[in-house]
């Protein structure tokens, strides 16, 4: 996977001459450098309610768009009558596919090269799909108008799940692209023969079916935009909820035919993305088309249910895992089959060249010689998507699979799951490690992480408590779940990942001003991750500046350098690398200016990271800060240097980074109701060098909450007719503060050897790593009675079903002790 062969000119900046930052050792330079817990610059406006989200954008003459959606999952559109809506006061226009066809906008490409209708003309393929749009003077009138659009449907039998879609007699979802079945693709990885051999030779084999349910990223801010066509300047400005503004600009230009320099995408404050805001949705196109035609700004903002029911979902992988092992627990092979439901279009938000994304990381943290995986993907009459949700392109499914399977193996062998893990970990001295499915893991120290986790949680005491409760026939069973996952984040490399052909690099531009302050423009884009602070810290670290003197700008394609966006924990691995490299380029030029100012040869000037100054070799008193040099660059530029001090870098990473973690989850299972109480969640994360430990911790807290939601509550479910039965927050349950247990975060530091500042991504680690820890814990609580799996979400119903089956369920009255006054002697 490594593209070390593609040494770009900026590769020389990856390793700084002074060895680069070492935040664990030095903890920054005291002015907001790396490793310092700088308070987030963006929080002031958020906490005081002054964030600026798309729905806050108001423009003169702005119209509002309401989308008319199909109540059916699978139906032919016979006709659409718009007259009654058009006749209403305040309704400005009603758009249908025919109107869009006139501008060649009736369809749009998906990120997987499929074609999706912007407005449906012939056949609706999932419930709530877009059929018409009403543009009106305010949002209530638009809604009133939408109610008056009459659409006649001829409903067809829907196919809702992949298992049914697979059948030969299943209704075909995609006649529009001449599909004769619902099959999209088959994907295979690894060595089938070697894996088969290992299974045949194995002492022990285990197998488990598990369904990683359909989830929704459910950002609190739904998707939306304000499109504004400026006829005088022939320019389209779109304020939109975008995780990838530049990629969206390119796609917008390609779809609309408006030249790219005449398209401006502004992504203001974004209220959570989690992958949901990577794709383009019909609503954006409709609003832009309406603005173009009407020459007025048009706002479209989804309602909650529209967001959950129609925009990019995550997971929906039906998996079977198998492990072959020796009798003392050494894993010799892993084999996986997957049935994937991609919905009505192949629209997964995944830019890798692999159809199943990074799923082939399913060998996890373990040194397994033989591996094989096979996947079949199907169209169904459900909303399109897949991938999204704080996940590096299916790593979440892969981690769930292997972390569950290791537990299944431990159970079969009657071994402690920690022991099985230890036995199979990739040893520390094996890095960089080539996995059986073709990845090159950059660095790791899994034993250290697990040892620390077990010690910190008093693992042995917990095991004793568990036994005690079993022996005492306690009402509540104790379960301890482990997850020792390896993540894969930081896409590119550009040759393996692209969006619409654009390679997945990322960028930064640093400009020093005469007074020594810096403006940094980045290609990645924050949706809450804290870039305005952490990217400023990278620059502060590399240039010795005070973090307050560094302003980070992002999210406006007119001013920022081209970037591929923020998702899949790629900002720090790629954009952060670009920022560090750009800073080092600035420092290189600064050095020659310093030599000029100090009147010594450039070789005699040295950079001191700690003080953030250049000084003459051996004469620390003769020093200059970057701020001094910035002034000199404008006011006293050397004869052989252009004035000014700035640099830009477009960074194509040589490899992904591989963060990892050791999680311990402790649960109590109520034998009367099946309710699961997560008593404690301990999360040790190793994301290499940490830029800002507080921000890292915040990312982990949020991700654990989402992992708990995944394990316990969330599921976008459908009935047999393709109706979304969990399309709002009364039925699609998100955890609140009340459902979140005590969380303890911890860390080890194993820097990435190829990253300029030794950092790895962290945002998605907790969402990826925690669900298997929680499921393992719940299974662990019931394991003594033979329970080996519970599917997510682990509703009380499901858990109680397992308790009942295993003979563990209990009635409260069984141990009831009442002490009633006036009670007569026993035996009465």
């Amino acid at each position, binding site marked *: 996977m490594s593209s070390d062969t593609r040494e770009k000119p900026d590769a020389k900046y990856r390793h700084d001459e002074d060895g680069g930052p070492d935040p664990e050792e030095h903890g920054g330079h005291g002015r907001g450098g790396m490793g310092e817990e700088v308070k987030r610059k963006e929080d002031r406006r958020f906490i005081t309610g002054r964030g600026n989200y798309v729905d806050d954008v108001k423009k003169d003459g702005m119209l509002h768009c309401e989308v008319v959606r199909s109540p059916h999952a699978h139906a032919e559109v016979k006709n659409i009558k718009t007259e009654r809506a058009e006749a209403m006061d305040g309704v400005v226009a009603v758009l249908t596919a025919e109107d869009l066809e006139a501008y060649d906008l009736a369809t749009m490409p998906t990120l997987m090269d499929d074609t999706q209708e912007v407005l449906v003309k012939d056949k609706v393929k999932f419930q709530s799909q877009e059929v018409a749009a009403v543009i009106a003077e305010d949002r*209530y009138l638009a809604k009133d108008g939408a109610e008056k659009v009459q659409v006649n449907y001829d409903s067809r039998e829907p196919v809702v799940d992949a298992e049914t879609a697979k059948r030969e007699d299943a209704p075909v979802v995609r006649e529009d692209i001449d599909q004769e079945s619902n099959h999209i693709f088959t994907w295979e990885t690894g060595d089938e023969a070697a894996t088969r051999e290992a299974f045949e030779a194995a002492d022990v084999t285990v197998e488990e079916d598990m369904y990683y349910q359909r989830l929704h990223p459910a950002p609190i801010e739904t998707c939306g935009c304000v499109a504004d066509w400026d006829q005088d300047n022939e320019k389209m400005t779109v304020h939109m909820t975008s995780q990838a503004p530049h990629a969206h600009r390119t796609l917008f230009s390609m779809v609309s035919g408006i030249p790219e320099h005449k398209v401006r995408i502004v992504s203001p404050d974004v209220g959570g993305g989690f992958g949901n805001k990577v794709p383009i949705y019909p609503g954006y196109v409709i609003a832009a088309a309406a603005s173009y035609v009407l020459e007025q700004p048009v706002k479209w903002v989804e309602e*909650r249910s529209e967001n959950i029911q129609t925009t990019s979902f995550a997971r929906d992988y039906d998996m079977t895992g198998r492990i072959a092992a020796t009798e003392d627990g050494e894993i010799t092979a892993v084999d996986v089959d997957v049935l994937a439901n991609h919905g009505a279009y192949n629209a997964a938000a995944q830019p890798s060249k692999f159809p199943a994304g990074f799923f082939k990381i399913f060998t996890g943290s373990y040194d397994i010689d033989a591996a094989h995986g096979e996947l079949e993907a199907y169209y169904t009459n459900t909303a399109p998507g897949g991938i999204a949700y704080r996940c590096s392109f299916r790593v979440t499914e892969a981690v769930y699979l292997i972390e569950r399977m290791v537990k299944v193996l431990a159970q079969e062998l009657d071994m402690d799951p920690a022991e099985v893990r230890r036995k199979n970990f990739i040893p520390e001295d094996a890095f960089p490690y080539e996995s059986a499915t073709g990845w090159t893991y950059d660095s790791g120290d899994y034993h250290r992480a697990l040892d620390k986790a077990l010690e910190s949680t008093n693992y042995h005491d917990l095991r004793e408590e568990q036994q005690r409760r079993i022996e005492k026939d306690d009402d509540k069973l104790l379960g301890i779940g482990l997850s020792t996952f390896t993540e894969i984040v930081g896409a590119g490399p550009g040759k393996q990942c692209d969006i619409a052909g654009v390679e997945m690099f990322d960028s930064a531009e640093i400009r020093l001003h005469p007074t020594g302050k810096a403006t940094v423009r980045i290609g990645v884009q924050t949706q809450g991750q804290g870039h305005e602070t952490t990217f400023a810290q990278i620059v502060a670290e590399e240039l010795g500046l005070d973090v307050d003197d560094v302003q980070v700008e992002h999210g406006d394609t007119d001013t920022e350098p081209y970037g591929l966006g923020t998702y899949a924990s790629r900002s720090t691995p790629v954009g952060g690398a670009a920022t560090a490299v750009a800073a080092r380029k600035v420092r290189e030029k600064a050095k020659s200016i310093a030599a000029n100012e100090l009147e010594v040869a450039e070789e005699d000037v040295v950079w001191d990271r700690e003080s953030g100054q250049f000084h003459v070799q051996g004469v620390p008193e003769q020093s200059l800060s970057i701020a001094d040099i910035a002034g000199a660059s404008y006011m006293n530029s050397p004869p052989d240097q252009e004035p000014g001090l700035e640099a830009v870098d477009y960074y194509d990473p040589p490899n992904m980074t591989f963060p990892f973690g050791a999680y311990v989850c402790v649960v109590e299972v109520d034998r009367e109701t099946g309710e699961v109480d997560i008593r404690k969640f301990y999360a040790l994360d190793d994301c290499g060098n940490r830029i800002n430990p507080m921000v890292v911790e915040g990312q982990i807290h949020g991700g654990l909450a989402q992992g708990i939601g995944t394990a316990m509550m969330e599921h976008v479910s459908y009935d047999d007719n393709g109706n979304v039965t969990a399309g709002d927050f009364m*039925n699609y349950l998100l*955890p609140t503060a009340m459902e979140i247990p005590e969380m303890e975060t911890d860390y080890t530091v194993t820097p990435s050897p190829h990253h300029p500042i030794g950092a790895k991504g962290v945002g998605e680690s907790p969402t990826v790593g925690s669900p298997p820890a929680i499921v393992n814990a719940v299974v662990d609580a019931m394991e003594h009675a033979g329970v080996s799996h519970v599917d997510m979400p682990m509703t*009380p119903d499901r858990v109680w079903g397992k308790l009942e089956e295993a003979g563990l369920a209990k009635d409260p009255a069984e141990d*009831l002790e009442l002490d009633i*006054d*006036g009670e007569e002697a026993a035996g009465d």
Partner: protein
Amino acid sequence: MKAAQFEHHEPTTVEEAVSLIESLDEPTILAGGQSLVPMMRFRLARPETVVDLNGIDELDYLQEADGYLKLGALARHADVEESSLIDRQYGSFADTAPLVADPQIRNRGTVVGSIAQSDPKGDWGTVLLAHEGEVVAHGPGGERTIPADEFFLLPYDNTLAEDELITEVRVPTSGDDEGSAYHKLKRKVGDYAMAGSAARVVLDGGRITDATVALTAVDITNVSVPDAADHLEGERPSGDLFKQAGELAAEHANPESDEHGSAEYKRNMVRVLTQRALADATERASNDGPAARYGTDQMAVGD
């Protein structure tokens, strides 16, 4: 979430409200708005006129009088939660209030509105049934009272006439030997019940002289379980007795499968929750045991 247009009226007396309701064409009453407003925003309800009770100060009370615990139409869930009247003897009220929705909704939503909404998943109807309470209605013909067990008809439907409003719900005051409790199973804080069970017992000389069991979310309305009550009355409280009562309640329940749980699970939980509610109610009636001390499970947290 964009409501259709409607007209808003805000009377300040019950009399004015009654005459408005009589004169307007199909008016809808607005109390806390915690059920009505979401329905309007989903356009599941689209009233042309809304009569808002929030300006009628005379309906804002929670008091013991004339042998009843009385809740006026503007008594909010939070008022019950905070009332000093609600203690050991109204244990089921104390249990229920903090389990209804979330704090924001409890600050606005009313107990009477919940009864009027007649959602089988609502909690207060069950409590009202368990206490054999009644609904006080006002219409053009004056005042009438409707016993709780004659009030609920279907989901979101009750015996209130089109031109009536509820001014009060009330339950007989609780004696010292009475105890009640409510147990509710939900998947997260703020949620409606997957299943709920309220129990009330009166003890005399170690025997149960009067009992009721009522259920939430397992039938087309909140329902009481007379079989369980009959089985309990005259008996000495015991684990076995409560187990049997729980089984009778489970048999009586008629739950449906949904997103949150299967019918089978809910039926089993009716058994479990009824046992728990009976155990707590008994502790309260005998003024002995943890349930008696705290009045509510929730209050015990952080104690």
